[in-house]
């Protein structure tokens, strides 16, 4: 899941200041799960902005819509015929959603209300943690499904740094030491032999250095 957090209201207000008719557009996928851009959050932000405009005596028409997904054309198409009625769209989608909507409606003003943060999991209600950097060269199969790039504060590929205390990271004492987790899990599974092997270095060209990455699947193209 892609996680995000709402920008401070002062920043949002500054962005929307030149516009009177604003469509607050949420996304019912990842950002709804992390309680930053779903229908409820759209309602809260739109309500706060309407009240703010009233308090400042500004004329503003702020409406709400939530798409099932803001990063897929078939869902974005819901905005066709609607988007032209507004001066700007305040998107509560992730960065991919904002850009996807802007790509389909290049004439429209699309503004981000969220700061997209990381790929992560819902650890418990109200707590999301990062656990994937989308490096494009997944090594989880070697490391007991614990990503050392993401979950080790130092991104170490070759074992623990030696600074952990009681299984906790020395950089963030709230976080478990990724390498302790890896060793414990592999030991439990009887697969410590995986750590004896020498692996080729990670291919970072799959993550960076070639501009925006893309995946093309001929069988999916219609």
């Amino acid at each position, binding site marked *: 899941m892609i996680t995000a957090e709402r920008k401070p209201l002062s920043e949002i207000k500054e962005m929307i200041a030149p516009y009177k008719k604003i469509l607050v557009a949420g996304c019912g996928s990842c950002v709804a799960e992390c309680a930053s851009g779903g229908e409820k959050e759209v*309602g*809260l932000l739109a309500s706060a902005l309407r*009240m*703010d405009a009233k*308090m400042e005596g500004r004329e503003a028409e*702020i*409406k*709400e819509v939530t798409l099932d997904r803001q990063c897929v054309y078939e869902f974005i198409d819901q905005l066709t015929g609607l988007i032209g009625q507004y001066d700007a769209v305040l998107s509560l989608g992730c960065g991919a959603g904002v850009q996807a909507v802007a790509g389909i409606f290049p004439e429209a003003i699309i503004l981000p209300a969220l700061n997209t943060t990381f790929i992560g999991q819902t650890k418990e209600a109200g707590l999301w943690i990062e656990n994937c950097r989308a490096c494009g060269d997944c090594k989880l199969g070697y490391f007991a499904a614990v990503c050392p790039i993401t979950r080790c504060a130092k991104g170490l590929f070759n074992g623990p740094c030696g600074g952990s205390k009681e299984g906790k990271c020395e950089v963030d004492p709230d976080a478990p030491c990724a390498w302790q987790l890896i060793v414990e899990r592999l030991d439990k599974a009887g697969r410590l032999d995986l750590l004896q092997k020498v692996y080729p270095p990670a291919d970072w060209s799959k993550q960076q250095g070639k501009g925006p990455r893309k995946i093309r699947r001929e069988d999916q193209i219609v």
Partner: protein
Amino acid sequence: MDQRSAGLNIVIFFCRQLDANQDVNRRALEKELGSRIKFFPLPCSGRIESLHLLRALETGADRVYLITCPEGSCRYREGNLRAGKRLAFAQGLIEEIGLERERLELIRATQDVQMTIDERAQEILMREAVVGPSPIKKSVAGPAV
């Protein structure tokens, strides 16, 4: 000046478990004050969403109260604790737009005092008006498109 004399619009969300006859007990006050007082019984205060509180303010309430059952006696164990967190979240949001956080208030009932909902409402109306009428005039809530 108390809140009744100040003519404030009061909205009260409350846990229905607090008063078994709440639907009857609140009628006289609703009749007397009309639109100046609105009651919203909840099956549990944990049903409240921050959005409910904001919508109440947006649609003309000067003060919004959320009355929960006493700590440790929620029928659903943690509903009243969650309600407090949601109210705090809404307070943070209204503060960001410059509205006083006192416009939203949590009242936690206590074990030792048994009161009907109208008695609680009367007590609220008798309180000093620490904030005046809301600077948000009659706002027309925009429906979802």
